[in-house]
């Protein structure tokens, strides 16, 4: 199971991906249906759902605006 955190833009998605990578969380940039359901068009970072809590707090603590989160099968 993957978790997706949806960001406000591709800029923040790339910034989030870099931040997560620097903290040992490897993610992919996605425009999956999961993102579309939350945002219309937009971008998210997709990663192992076991790392959700860690990833979310990393992004929040870095001031990266999170639009929402969802599961991706």
């Amino acid at each position, binding site marked *: 199971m993957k978790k997706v955190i949806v960001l406000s833009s591709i*800029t923040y998605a790339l910034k989030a991906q870099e931040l997560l990578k620097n903290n040992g969380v490897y993610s992919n940039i996605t425009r999956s249906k999961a993102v579309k359901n939350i945002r*219309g068009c937009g971008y998210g970072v997709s990663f192992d759902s076991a790392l959700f809590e860690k990833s979310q707090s990393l992004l929040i603590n870095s001031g990266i605006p999170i639009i929402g989160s969802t599961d991706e099968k």
Partner: protein
Amino acid sequence: MIYFDNAATSMPKPHAVISAMSEAFKSCGNSGRSGHKYALTAAQTVYECRKKLAMMFNTRPECVIFTASATEALNIAIKGTNRIGGVTLVSSMEHNSVMRPINTLRKNGETVLRQFLVDVNSDDITCDNFSSVSRSATNVVITHASNVCGRILPIKKFRSLLSDDVVFILDASQTAGHIAIDIVELGVDIMCIPAHKGLFGPMGVGALIINPYSDVIIEPLIEGGTGTNSKTFEMPENYPEKLEAGTLNVCGIAGLSAALDDVEFNDKEMDLFKYLVMSLNDMVDIILYGTPVKNNWNDYVPVLLFNKKGFDCETLCELLAEKGFALRAGFHCAPNAHMTLGTYEIGGVRLSLSKKNNRREIDRFLNVLDSIKA
């Protein structure tokens, strides 16, 4: 041809810039518009350039807004922060990329325009002149260095004379790439830069850079698609997308990104500039305007204005072009700067150096200039 018109655009562009642009034409789709590899390659290319600019000017990547030029960035900054009924303060050295948008606001009754006189020989007098009109200012728009004579203005001092709620916009068109700039240290809210001058990037790219500690709100000048949140007719609230409607010049941004890898700050340009100015000072038929008078070389970027006795500036510039030297004559889109320097009626020839110039080129120029007789 020996190129001395770097204040207009720097030449020759590095091979790395041309290669990066060529590669981007082949590998980049539309940034921020899809999830396929071409779109993501473009997005990554743009983001890398944002990061490099953010590092260079001490801000965050999302505070770097790409535009088509410094002029576009200035228009967004000036019109996007204007306060109806406010007062906009400018220096007497501004380029028309500042003066024309503010003049439009003034004509529409949307701002009152005030100007302070720059004394190129004394920052103290300049600051006194600034203080005498700055009390009512709501917005300040000032060039970092004159595009006519290269004089750097005391921006940090200006900021210290203003209250925190005054929006300060810096036109760094002539300083970016020539001197190190820290937007936080200067204390300005927004700075606007071109890619194609001191940074040696391509034409067609500029940037509006926001101080990460500023709470300035910039309203978009151009609205449209951003690739995100497509179901709403409102522009996104977050930078950079709030101010980046439409397709970015990804290939140009790729070129700028390559150019940034080659930016270094050293004394080479200013050593050449000193040699040039001191040599011209010794030529009796050359008149210099606004050049250093007391070894204050650090107050300048390598741009100078001159005339030769007995010659109209355009005629002299043509003669120099015929002899293999690229300079620029006229009024350089900055009429008030010429008013300040005393050349409003006659204009002048501008010579602007870059890191690519060398002593031999300057010696050849001095010989040819001296040999031209009325």
